């Protein structure tokens, strides 16, 4: 029995730490630990609920818009305040753009290099690579000339003795299996994705007013004045800019992202058997189609024990089934006490002890649904879509499994999605649907404005006494919910139950492991000094814990510690 600790504790940053017990080259037990206390919610107490979203969007510098939207939804829910249709559509377009951006960045820039060996790409023949690409996609960026340029650029990095962005990778690791040609193609798309990231960010900038922190949101609607003939407002010119950008990003998503995930998935088919973990899934509906939040373009629901026939749908922004069944446990987290409480009743009193395998070991609380750990994220969302017969989900899931299956020369069923690679596939499937729905909501917005409706805002009124509200959003990393208690127009309590808390949370009072912990069990580890396989499974969740602070360490030379005992 040996133990690996992957602990990027360098300085004052908060981080994810993973501990794993290895026996016979396989993980037997794992611990997921958040290494920094935040408790940012406490800053909100006593403030004006109309301004809460400004603060919550600073919870995380990457997931800015998602915390803004969950916050205004929570306050609107507390007041039972409806929002005008234009505001829903504008919000939906911002959310869709943010999600496409986030998923592309996650796949290409944060996780693809777990599977793609950059150094191997140097050996590739660009002509062969281009020929291979032609069998998979009509994307014009896959020309021999382009791929030769990418290879030469890579070679330049190596000849200069520095790999730049590709410095820290497990190159040459025995778990890397792709041919040099596939590696070169993936590196080329990695670079192209950077330009796509810039494009899609412009959609958020146009509609949100600013990025990365949007300014056009308000409790009760949005702050984008609509006047098709006025340069200073949201006008036809800007709407067509948005449309062009959505068209371009959709082409990349369909012709490149789809193909890459299918091909890499097919070539690592054994990873469809690792990383399953917790198969209880939670997702919430999103992209509302009406003012009250009772009709949605994306369904959400609860699935227990991987049994799709068990699905229970979450239908509206007022859903009691959701509201009543979320709790958080601090039995194994560094807070004062050992309670399990509903978010409205929680407090956040830090009490650090030490890392105890059988005691407290994380700053992350353990959220539970009806007492069960739940996996959240695109996989949960896609599975509930399939279970509920959501046509776009069924269409894209089927197409993905067929395409990957034909490359791997096998038949793939939705059962393979309960895995490390299944999470990547589901994220891509969701991105395809979002791209289509972004088009739809652009049309809904333009048609609604054409009808003469320019309404964007209903003013919130805060009665005396106490109101409670919750707002959820199916964010890129999964179900996000904000819970607010308002007393006499001021915030009395605020809690955010975030996707990475659901997934990265520790055990609870019943010793039930969280999704990261459960998913690592059974993973192979070829080289304990270079635990690439563990990184693959953790990355497949798109972890997001260390976003709160930032201080740059220009002079530091420390690197993340991987300790194998």
């Amino acid at each position, binding site marked *: 029995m040996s133990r690996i600790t992957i602990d990027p504790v360098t300085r004052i940053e908060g981080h994810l730490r993973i501990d794993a017990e290895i026996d016979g080259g396989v993980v037997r037990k794992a611990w997921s630990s958040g290494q920094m206390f935040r408790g940012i919610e406490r800053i909100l107490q006593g403030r004006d609920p109309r301004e809460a979203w*400004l603060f919550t969007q600073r919870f995380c510098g*990457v997931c800015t818009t998602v915390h803004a939207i969950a916050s205004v939804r929570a306050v609107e829910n507390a007041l039972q305040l409806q929002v005008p249709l234009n505001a829903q559509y504008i919000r939906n377009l911002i959310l869709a753009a943010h999600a496409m951006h986030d998923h592309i960045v996650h796949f290409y820039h944060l996780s693809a290099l777990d599977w793609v060996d950059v150094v191997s790409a140097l050996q590739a023949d660009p002509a062969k690579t281009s020929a291979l690409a032609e069998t998979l996609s009509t994307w014009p960026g896959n020309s021999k000339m382009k791929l030769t340029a990418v290879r030469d650029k890579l070679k330049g990095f190596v000849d200069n003795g520095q790999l730049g962005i590709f410095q820290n990778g497990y190159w040459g690791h025995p778990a890397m299996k792709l041919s040099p040609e596939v590696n070169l193609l993936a590196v080329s798309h990695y670079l192209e994705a950077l330009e796509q990231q*810039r494009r899609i960010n412009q959609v958020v900038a146009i509609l949100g007013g600013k990025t990365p922190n949007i300014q056009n949101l308000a409790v009760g609607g949005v702050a984008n004045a609509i006047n098709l003939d006025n340069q200073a407002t949201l006008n036809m010119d800007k709407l067509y800019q948005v449309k062009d950008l959505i068209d371009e990003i959709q082409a990349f998503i369909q012709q490149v992202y789809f193909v890459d995930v299918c091909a890499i998935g097919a070539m690592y088919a054994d990873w469809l058997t690792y990383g399953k973990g917790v198969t209880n899934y939670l997702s919430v509906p999103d992209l509302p189609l009406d003012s009250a939040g009772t009709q949605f373009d994306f369904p959400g629901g609860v699935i227990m024990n991987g049994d799709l026939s068990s699905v229970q749908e979450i239908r509206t922004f007022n859903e009691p089934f959701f509201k009543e069944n979320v709790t958080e446990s601090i039995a194994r987290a560094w807070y004062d006490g050992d309670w399990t409480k509903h978010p409205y009743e929680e407090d956040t009193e830090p009490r650090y002890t030490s890392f105890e395998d059988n005691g407290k070991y994380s700053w992350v609380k353990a959220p539970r649904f009806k007492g069960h750990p739940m996996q959240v994220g695109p996989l949960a969302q896609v599975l509930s879509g399939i279970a509920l017969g959501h046509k776009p989900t069924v269409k894209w899931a089927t197409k993905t499994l067929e395409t990957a299956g034909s490359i791997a020369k096998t038949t793939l069923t939705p059962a393979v999605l309960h895995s490390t690679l299944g999470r990547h596939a589901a994220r891509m499937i969701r991105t395809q649907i979002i791209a289509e729905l972004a088009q739809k909501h652009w049309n809904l917005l333009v048609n609604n404005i054409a009808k003469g409706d320019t309404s964007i805002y209903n003013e919130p009124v805060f009665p005396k006494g106490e109101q409670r509200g919750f707002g959820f959003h199916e964010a890129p990393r999964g179900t996000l919910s904000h819970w607010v208690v308002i007393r006499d127009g001021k915030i009395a309590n605020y809690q955010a139950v975030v996707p990475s808390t659901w997934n990265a949370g520790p055990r609870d009072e019943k010793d039930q492991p969280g999704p990261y912990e459960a998913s690592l069990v059974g993973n192979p580890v070829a080289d304990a000094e270079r635990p690439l396989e563990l990184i693959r499974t953790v990355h497949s969740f798109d972890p997001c814990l260390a976003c709160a602070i930032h201080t740059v360490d220009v002079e530091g030379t420390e690197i993340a510690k991987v300790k194998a005992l």
Partner: protein
Amino acid sequence: MIRVLGLGNVLMSDDGLGPYVVRVLEANYECPSGVEFVDAGTPGLDLTPYLLDARAVIFVDTVSSKGQPGEIRVYERDEILKYPPQTRTGPHDPALKEALLRVAAVNGGPDQVTLIGVIPQWVATGVAMSPIVQDAVPRAVVAVVETLTRLGKPPVLRERAIQPDLWWCDAPEKFSHPAAK
């Protein structure tokens, strides 16, 4: 395009220095044409879009360095990239180095990169900066102005300064760092 990017989290006391400096800068100076002042928060790798079309960038951020809190450290591109970025396990590790290397791989990115860093005293949940880091704000603003001037884009003092939009500091101090009391 030249961008001044204030980095940091305004909910984490001294870490909010970058956005604070940008807000004070825009309240006191006219932004020259071809220059953008951006309160960029903590974008991690999402910094990349702000670098792709820029010929020069000036970062303002807190830095980890030997020295006293409140001291200013200025770094140029080569110094920032002298040591390789740390291994990344999540998407949110400070990604300044990574973002610079990423744009370098695509189109070269900005030729001129300056990081105006301030050594923080405390970084913990709260909206108030430590007094010593607060005192460094005017010096950091001057450092940005000097850098812009060197880049041929001297910002002009506003005839009448406007109130900086420091919305996070306005509301009640329900929770501030113990050292602030």
